[in-house]
């Protein structure tokens, strides 16, 4: 606790800065206080959605964009599981239902990519969205030419044209250079500069086929700074930029991942230039939706009716320059919970901000693996299910089911549950013991996780559990 207080005392400016950014924090809290009783009345009849969706205006084109953006990287599958096995098909019916429901409740921003869901996301979204008037929603997609064999101008343009075909449209509302900063300047130049693709996309914007051009950023800060420098010099113009922002990454990005940069810096740089900001990873890959039990209880004490995830969404949606907050919603429950959070947004207060800072400090003391389940590391050439291994380990840590001392009275139960749960979550052949340390995953991880090292750490823990019965 001493640690938290000293941190808070050391950096009061950060908090104030943040409050300024998000406008009248306390004012809206009072407003929220007034609207709450009414909200409760409506609660039963409308799945907890209490009022109108909050909208933000794009400074570049004046689009009124819903604060909740629909992320299409984790679409539901027919087996009711997240899309991991190659033979699992996307459940188009469920996608259609979710899209209809989202549109009906004011969501109008849909973010996809040629890489998502093993390449099936755009196609599914094209089917679902084309059933509605084209001017009732905004489509965001990306030029996901990660693999060096797709760096050529021809292959990249083909990827862009294919996106239009799959999405059944002749224009893209929001087009992104995908994941710049991954693999540094060299990859950026190879993917977008040397082949003239950035110029090509700018021409497409001029021709009206792309309404907004921007980029999503992970990793090397040099590339981010370089692209903003191009913007400053007038050589490029970015209508929007997509960054990773959540209450952990605001000031502690480096502690989660040494390659990342604090969201505060990224946001401020964009805000200074008046560039609209799209938020990804508001939940830090779901980790802020399933935090340690003790911390979750504190959140529930403060806002018993709200989900744990809603805290992260309210945080990410509070800064005024944020255009939309993306959430990869697999199930209707996710969608309804998020609609509840943003209809309308109840911005985080001064007091809540301090509270979230305390939560963050406590969270960082847990040695979880900062995996966001983005699956960019997959497929692992040796068949491992990397995100599932990390998810199981993190889940057990968060739920207090990791014990190392066999004399601990809780050891037997923790051991049994960890090992049984491990076999349930990850088939034996795809477990950490099969990692051969080839490192093929390393360059793909936007979070910069030392995947082989972490897998080896988990494998050693499993081995220790197996060899030491209580």
């Amino acid at each position, binding site marked *: 606790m001493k640690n938290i207080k000293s941190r808070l005392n050391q950096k009061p400016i950060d908090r104030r800065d943040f409050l300024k950014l998000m406008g009248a924090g306390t004012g809206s809290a009072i407003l929220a206080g007034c609207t709450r009783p009414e909200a409760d009345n409506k609660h039963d009849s409308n799945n907890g959605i209490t009022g109108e969706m909050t909208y933000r205006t794009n400074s570049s084109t004046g689009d009124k964009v819903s604060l909740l953006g629909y992320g299409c*990287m984790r679409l539901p599958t027919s087996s009711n599981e997240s*899309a*991991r*096995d*190659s033979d699992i098909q996307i459940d188009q019916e469920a996608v259609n239902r979710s899209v209809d429901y989202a549109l009906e409740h004011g969501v109008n921003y849909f973010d996809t990519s*040629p*890489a*998502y*869901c*093993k*390449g099936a996301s755009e196609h599914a979204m094209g089917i679902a969205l084309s059933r509605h008037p084209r001017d009732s929603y905004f489509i965001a997609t990306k030029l*996901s030419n*990660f*693999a060096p*064999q*797709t760096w050529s101008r021809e292959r990249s343009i083909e990827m862009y044209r294919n996106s239009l075909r799959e999405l059944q449209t002749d224009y893209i509302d929001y087009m992104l250079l995908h994941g710049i900063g991954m693999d540094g300047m060299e990859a950026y130049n190879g993917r977008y500069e040397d082949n003239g693709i950035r110029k090509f996309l700018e021409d497409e914007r001029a021709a009206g086929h792309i309404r907004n051009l921007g980029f999503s950023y992970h990793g090397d800060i040099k590339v981010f700074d370089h692209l903003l420098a191009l913007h400053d010099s007038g050589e490029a113009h970015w209508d929007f930029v997509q960054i990773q922002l959540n209450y952990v990454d605001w000031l502690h990005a480096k502690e989660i991942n040494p390659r990342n940069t604090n969201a505060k810096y990224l946001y401020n740089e964009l805000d200074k230039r008046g560039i609209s900001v799209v938020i990804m990873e508001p939940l830090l890959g779901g980790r802020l939706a399933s935090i340690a039990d003790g911390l979750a209880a504190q959140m529930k004490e403060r806002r018993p009716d709200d989900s744990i995830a809603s805290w992260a969404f309210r945080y990410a949606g509070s800064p005024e320059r944020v255009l939309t907050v993306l959430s990869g919603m697999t199930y209707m429950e996710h969608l309804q919970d998020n609609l509840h959070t943003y209809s309308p947004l109840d911005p985080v207060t001064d007091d809540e901000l301090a509270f979230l800072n305390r939560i963050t400090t406590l969270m960082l003391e847990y040695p979880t693996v900062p995996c966001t389940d*983005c*699956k*960019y590391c*997959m*497929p*692992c*050439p*040796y*068949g491992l*299910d990397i995100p599932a291994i990390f998810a199981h380990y993190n889940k057990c840590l968060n739920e207090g089911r990791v014990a190392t001392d066999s004399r601990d009275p809780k050891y037997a139960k923790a051991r*049994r*549950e960890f090992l*049984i*749960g491990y*076999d*349930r979550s990850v088939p*034996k*052949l*795809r477990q950490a*013991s*099969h*990692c*051969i*340390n*080839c*490192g*093929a995953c390393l360059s*793909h991880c936007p979070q910069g996780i030392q995947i082989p090292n972490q897998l*080896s750490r988990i494998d050693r823990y499993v081995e220790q559990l*197996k*060899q*030491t*019965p209580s």
Partner: protein
Amino acid sequence: MLRRLRKVLAVISIVAVTLLFFDFTGTSRHLWGWMARIQFMPALLALNLAVLIGLLITTLLLGRVYCSVVCPLGILQDTINRISIRFSSRIKRKSGRFHYTPEHRTLRIIFLILFFAGIIAGMTSIAALIAPYSAYGRIISQLGIPVYDAANNVLADIAQANDSYAFYHVEQPAFNWPLFIVAIVTLAVVGIMAWLGGRTYCNTVCPVGTILGYISKFALLRPEINTDTCNNCGRCARNCKASCIDPKAHKIDYTRCVACFDCMENCSTGALTYRLRTKTESKPNDVKHVDASRRNFISMATILAGAAAASAEDKIVDGGLAPIAEKKAPTRKSPIAPPGARSVAHLRQHCTACQLCISACPNDVLRPSAELDSFMQPVVGYERGYCRPECTECSSICPDGAIHPITAAEKSSTSIGYAVVDADSCLSVSMGESCGNCARHCPAGAISMIEVTRNGKKRTMPYVNGYCIGCGACENLCPVRPLSAIHVEGREIHTTL
């Protein structure tokens, strides 16, 4: 009264022995694993004198009660017989459906000779084909366990859906056609014999029944017919599932009587009683026990085919799982016997192929052999798992002394095989990967990655030192599929490091 006692004991006995096979958690084995050890055939192969003398004394005192309350196959036949009565005509149900038949002595002796010939020739697995406990183990492990495991996995699904850890998934044993067919045939033969003729199998085929039968001729207590009170109704004979009562002669063939007491229950005049013997019989028939001789097991040496190395796929999109090819068993020059077996020959000679160790193995290492010289006996393979350092399940359950009890510490210094590297298919050598998964996972620390120069390129390659215990961690975790680049060759005689 006696009959009821027999039935209660029989039910407890068959349930307990069957649970030994089903219980993959190992709990029951620690509590009543001894129930497998008091079976005749395992005790004979283990030369477990205490049990053998105990069985001899019991039989000399009480007759063949072993066949009625200890032998699971005998109890299974009684159960089938009971069901068949339900399906027979009303008259038969009331008055009994059996009749006296003379003993097929020649057949009994032939089967007994075949049985011992099998053991002496080192073909214990062939002898085990007609041994009752092995036959029961075969039926349960091939036909019962898959059903039991499937039911467990349904419960595990339910538990998982409710976030409970009360049940967990188990892997189904690998399906094997020949073994499945042998189990089906065993069940069919025993089942049909029991359905039609009660204890025909026990009194014609079963070598244990024959041995105990000729001993029980001298039993102190036995059912006897009091000719003074007998009214010659013949009901006892019609209800004798061993068909051993000759009502006209008022004689009982004690070599075939399994002391089930059904006759006494059915006698309306109380002429049949279980009592001290009153008449002496003819001379005893000697039953010889001969020690089995050792046999060499040298199968054809085959050269390992170069395995195709797994190659990394180009990553274009996120998500998905790379397909994993199933591991194939390498052709081993010598088979591997589990720790505690001491040598391959020892296992071959003492194992009754009851399948108990196979159903106990939590790591999917033991499986029934399909080879003729070791049919149904356990063989070690590392395609689905490896012999984990903390596990001693098979050695703690084996009733035959084929796998002697061993502690985890003893196991860690017992070498059952040695790892062999196929440099051509090893990823580190052929593709220059910094794999080393075998070295990382060797529980004995016997593998290190050394630098070599192959085709002018500097590469690393696993080097196996003399501390290899043959546990198969390297073979199981080797990324090269379907044939691992490192595999274990068995030691015919285990060595202590």
